[in-house]
């Protein structure tokens, strides 16, 4: 495996994301796999941010801690990231921004601002110079990046200025490249892979699933989902609305779904807290809805721009009363896409709320994936066909059935009226107060839970040969777990993985089967209390798990996790 870790540091407003994206996508187009994370402070301008890319000729979707190349766009980035460099790594910096000199062999001075000004650009084009310098340093085919800039800024004046700045950085680096640095990135082959964030995969999944309405209230890190969809309104034939608050957001989506339209909302934990009342309404009224919770560290405002997996207990228990729900926790961009389709289908089929748990790490990270396979996208619904409904003598919205699922119709679908109610109600939807109706209707709704559990494929498990250890996790840590296990296994320390995606209703039988013979089980979670470990203990009786928990708001790094599991590094 040939790989390279690049970190671009700077202040907010210096164009880190666009530089990082251009760098990543250029390598992807050349046949490499790129995984990138974004690390930002909660500020519009200033502060210290970085964008870190891992480039490999093998499929990867997790990060390692130490960079081979640091591009420092400001002084703080030099101070912060120079010490992180691997031996043989290199620091690209602008002396104007730093008191350092270019004398040390691992330091490569590139006058970003001066070259930007010479190419007719402004200070903000320093990022294009830096980008060019990296390509020059790595001897990479610059035409790929030039073409990308032309596509991205099509029709804007920015095209020429950016390309000039890029060329200036490239030529400078080729001329003055330090002899000690020999890393190169070659074009492997032209490939057709997607380079996208988890949020973009979630939004695309919603479109593929025939979602036609999304309402949301802005909240990091979920806002990128409605941002994407709002920009596709015409093309994707979808309506988006920024609501006055999260309560309105979820209730608008509820109203649209009641009208027969596949609808969703997205938020983070604090916003979901405001939606909880409606989560319970969805349970009572049996209106399908998909809610995406992009987790961030709490409690309360917590660390608004950082990551955590701490809403698992919250989403499986949120809401007054008892009702059926589904919780999915995709492990990468590909699973995020297909899970959205599955979320809409499960919501529609069982007439329940489905919560999709993402987090800042999954939402904001860039993945390299094969184009999504739309032949795998199917539609499942409990909605009655209109001609069938028209022929029916009568219609009961909450008809009691063996499965607990009543045939669904929407207002003005036929001459049959549709009554939807938040109170306890009879089969027609008329509010009821008598004990017998209450028991019958409550049982009808709760019957769905075991039906849903029966469709749960259970956790994913992977092992090679005899494994003396199993690492267990859920949601966004999937790729970190798999690569960690792979690395340990290569060292002769065979390690199995168990990963939970469809986590609620909890697949207790499957989990029991998978874990029953396992010894030395390590549960890895981005939270402080080990929520999955507790769920496993509660539902399987298996509580001999070790825990590696990270709750500093940062994602796990593969190389660090390997050392933590071996006991060489304290979590």
């Amino acid at each position, binding site marked *: 495996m040939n790989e390279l870790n690049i970190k671009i540091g700077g202040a907010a407003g210096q164009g880190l994301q666009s530089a990082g994206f251009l760098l990543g996508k250029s390598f992807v187009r050349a046949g490499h796999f790129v995984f990138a994370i974004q690390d930002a402070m909660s500020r519009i301008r200033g502060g210290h941010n970085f964008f870190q890319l891992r480039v490999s000729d093998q499929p990867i979707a997790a990060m390692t801690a130490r960079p081979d190349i640091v591009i420092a766009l400001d002084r703080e980035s030099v101070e912060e990231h120079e010490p992180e460099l691997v031996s043989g790594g290199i620091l690209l910096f602008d002396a104007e921004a730093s008191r350092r000199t270019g004398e040390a062999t691992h330091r490569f001075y590139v006058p970003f601002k001066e070259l930007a000004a010479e190419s007719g650009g402004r200070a903000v084009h320093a990022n294009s110079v830096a980008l060019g310098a990296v390509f020059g340093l790595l001897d990479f085919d610059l035409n790929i990046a030039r073409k990308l800039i032309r596509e991205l800024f099509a029709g804007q004046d920015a095209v020429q200025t950016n390309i000039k700045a890029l060329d200036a950085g490239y030529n400078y680096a080729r001329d003055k490249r330090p002899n000690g640095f020999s890393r190169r990135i070659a074009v492997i082959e032209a490939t057709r*892979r*997607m*380079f996208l964030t988890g949020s*973009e995969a979630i939004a*695309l999944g919603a*479109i*593929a*699933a*025939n979602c*036609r*309405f999304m309402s949301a209230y802005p909240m990091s890190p979920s806002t990128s989902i409605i941002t994407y969809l709002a920009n*596709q*309104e*015409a*093309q994707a*034939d*979808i*309506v988006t609305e920024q*609501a006055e608050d999260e*309560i*309105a*957001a979820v*209730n*608008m*989506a*509820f*109203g*649209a*779904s*009641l*009208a*027969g*339209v596949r*609808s969703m909302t997205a938020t983070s934990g604090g916003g979901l807290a405001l939606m909880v*009342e*409606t989560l319970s*309404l969805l349970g009572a*009224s049996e209106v399908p809805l998909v809610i995406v919770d992009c987790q961030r560290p709490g409690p309360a405002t917590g660390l608004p721009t950082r990551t955590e997996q701490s809403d698992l207990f919250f989403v499986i228990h949120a809401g007054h009363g008892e009702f059926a729900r589904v919780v999915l926790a995709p492990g990468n961009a590909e699973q995020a896409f297909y899970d959205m389709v599955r979320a809409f289908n499960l919501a529609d089929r069982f007439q329940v709320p489905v919560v999709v748990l993402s987090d800042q790490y999954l939402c904001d990270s860039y993945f390299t994936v094969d*184009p*999504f396979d*739309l032949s795998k*996208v199917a*539609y499942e619904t409990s909605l009655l066909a209109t001609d069938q409904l028209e022929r029916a003598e*009568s*219609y009961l919205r909450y008809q009691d059935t063996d499965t607990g699922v009543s045939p669904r119709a*929407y*207002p*003005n679908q036929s*001459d*049959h*009226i*549709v*009554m*939807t*109610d*938040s*109170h306890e109600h009879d089969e027609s*939807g*008329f*509010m009821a107060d008598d004990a017998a109706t209450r028991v019958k209707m409550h049982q009808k709704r709760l019957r769905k839970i075991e039906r849903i559990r029966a469709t749960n494929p259970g956790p994913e498990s992977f092992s090679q040969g005899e494994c003396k250890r199993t690492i267990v996790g859920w949601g966004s840590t999937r790729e970190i777990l798999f690569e960690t296990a792979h690395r340990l296994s290569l060292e002769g320390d065979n390690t199995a993985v168990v990963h939970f995606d469809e986590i609620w209703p909890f697949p207790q039988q499957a989990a029991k089967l998978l874990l029953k013979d396992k010894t030395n089980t390590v549960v890895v979670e981005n939270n402080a209390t080990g929520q999955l470990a507790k769920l496993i203990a509660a539902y399987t009786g298996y509580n001999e798990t070790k825990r590696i928990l990270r709750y500093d708001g940062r994602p796990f790094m593969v190389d660090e996790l390997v050392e933590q599991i071996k006991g060489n590094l304290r979590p």
Partner: protein
Amino acid sequence: MTNGNEYEKRTTAWCPGCGNFAILDSVKESLEAMNKKPREVLLIGGIGQASKLPQYLSANSLCTLHGRALPAATGAKIGNTSLTVVAFCGDGDCYGEGGNHFIHAIRRNIDITVLVHNNQVYGLTQGQASPSSDMGFTTKVQPQGVRSTPLSGPALAVALGCGFVARGFAGNKAQLISLIQEGIRHRGFSLIEVIQPCPSMNRHNTFGWYKERIRDLQSEWKHDSSNRTAAFERALLWGETIPVGIFYRSEEGRTFESRIPILNNGPLVKRPLRRREVTEKLIEAFI
């Protein structure tokens, strides 16, 4: 199955003498007079005595949560623009719990009609003050009297630029029926506040109390409902006189739906299931 344009009434859970009976009759007669088929009508309530109304007429109905009728109504109308959506809320539901939604639903100007049954008291929870209770009104929870000034829904609506703002009285069915029809006909958000005496929980603002004070905007002031400043002034009147009629009407504002280009292609709910080509195109943009 509903036949023709007749609406059946169901047995209600309201107290004898409740103003809601006249409102229910007025809604039924208005919809029938307008030839609205029950299948085309979606009646939405929040929670409260007023919000039970949707269940008592044989049309599509939704009883949602306290305060949440308006966002649900907004979503339903976006989902299916062929529906005539009418929401029923109390003063607590719309001006208290749902106050923020009330403000923003007016800003959106979505084409729905909202009846706020204003009895200046919480009936369902047995007699606490509401946002529109008079200053000094005493209840078990406010034994020393209400300490805040009452909120005027119509004045707030006029201030926000609502295109149809009216007030009716449960004691005047003929006028109420006309207001409901005008409100439903108006393209955009229509607010009709209905003075609804609560004989069980509000012994202060009784039928007689209202009857003495109610004045018709037309006959008393020769009110010009296109004059927003005059409308605001009169919407603020409360106490010695309580104006009823249409405060303000303007057809100038475009509806929310008409500002969403793709809704011109018909109701969202009728869209065919063709996602493959568009998803393929969007995927291509990430390669």
